[in-house]
């Protein structure tokens, strides 16, 4: 049976490198993707992921299990770094290629799908940060509203309303894209 994140964290704080590697391997993906969707920049996502786990090494003792999971703790650190970066550097390098996995369908279908996904990715990245983070966490990373409220430091109701508003903006952006494509 695999160890919980909390157990791994406790072990790594005692100097267990294997526990750190296991925890990193388990949680770097969500942290990296969160940073990537928020900044739409591969170098920034890498930097933020590094900063998050460095912070865990240095200040992992600040984790309080009564206030959420280890993952929400990591998302919280990532969010702080993301917001600082967005504020500091509004011009970020665009992601040129993320999706390299074509499905088994026809080439045209694949291209259309890739194009659609890329457009959704652009639309998400163009959301105001306050809505973007709610959409990225809840819709892309499958974080519960309760956990999102801890990460975003706001009530659950606020998470819901930000998510709803974010989806409405997306709906508008994506609908315009479909119209443009059809014209």
């Amino acid at each position, binding site marked *: 049976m695999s160890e919980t994140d909390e157990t791994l964290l406790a072990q*790594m704080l005692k*100097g267990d*490198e294997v526990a*750190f*590697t296991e925890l*990193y*391997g388990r949680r*770097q*993906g969500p*942290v*990296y*993707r969160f940073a*990537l*969707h928020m900044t739409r920049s591969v170098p920034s*996502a*890498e930097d933020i*992921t*590094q900063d998050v*786990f*460095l912070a865990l*090494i*240095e200040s992992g003792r600040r984790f309080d299990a009564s206030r959420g999971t280890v993952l929400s703790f990591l998302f919280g650190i990532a969010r702080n770094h993301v917001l600082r970066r967005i504020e500091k550097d509004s011009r970020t390098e665009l992601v040129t290629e*993320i*999706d390299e*996995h074509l499905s088994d369908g026809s080439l045209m279908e694949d291209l259309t*799908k890739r194009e*659609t*996904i890329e457009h*959704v*990715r652009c639309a*998400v990245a163009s959301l105001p940060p306050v809505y973007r983070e709610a*959409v990225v966490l809840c*819709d*892309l*990373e*499958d974080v519960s509203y309760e956990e999102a409220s801890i990460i975003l430091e706001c009530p659950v109701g606020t998470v819901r309303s930000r998510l709803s508003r974010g*989806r409405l903006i*997306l*709906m508008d952006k*994506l*609908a315009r894209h*479909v119209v443009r494509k059809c014209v």
Partner: protein
Amino acid sequence: MTDDAVRGLLRELAEADASAKAPPELELRLRKEFRAHHRRKSWRSLGFWVLPVPVAAVIFLAILTLVHRRPPTESANGVSINTPVTISSEQALRPETSRPAATTPAPRASVLSAPETEEVVTEFFPLMDPAPPFQRGQLLRVELPASVMQIVGLPVREEHLADPVQADVLIGEEGLPRAIRFVTFEVR
């Protein structure tokens, strides 16, 4: 477009990016940093008393052994000591990395018998933190197991932990070891 359609598109995006992850070299960098952090931490956590205890114990054992072994001319049974040298705080705290064997304050037959070697010393590692004011003290040359180097944070390979190494121990006026430095001999 409906809310369900937007959610569907977001699900597609989530699936497409599900395998996105940080590059492998990042893990290597972080593991390196993890090791460095815990080395620093274990060094700091030794604190005021814990650090001197193992070092002081070894050093006092060495000195005690030597008290009963006169004259202390050569190393034997893992412990040797030279004539105590009284030094001032300025001398003791001056950083030094290399010096010719001829400048050592007391004659050391075992060292000087090899005329083509040069004595190379490390910096002093404090054995008390914080250290009380230091006015005068004695510098003693002793031979200790290499494991003592590990205690002060120097890297020693496992297979060399029992090897003898020479060290200069700075003894304060109150008779407690204040600092230690290690000595090697390099062929010129």
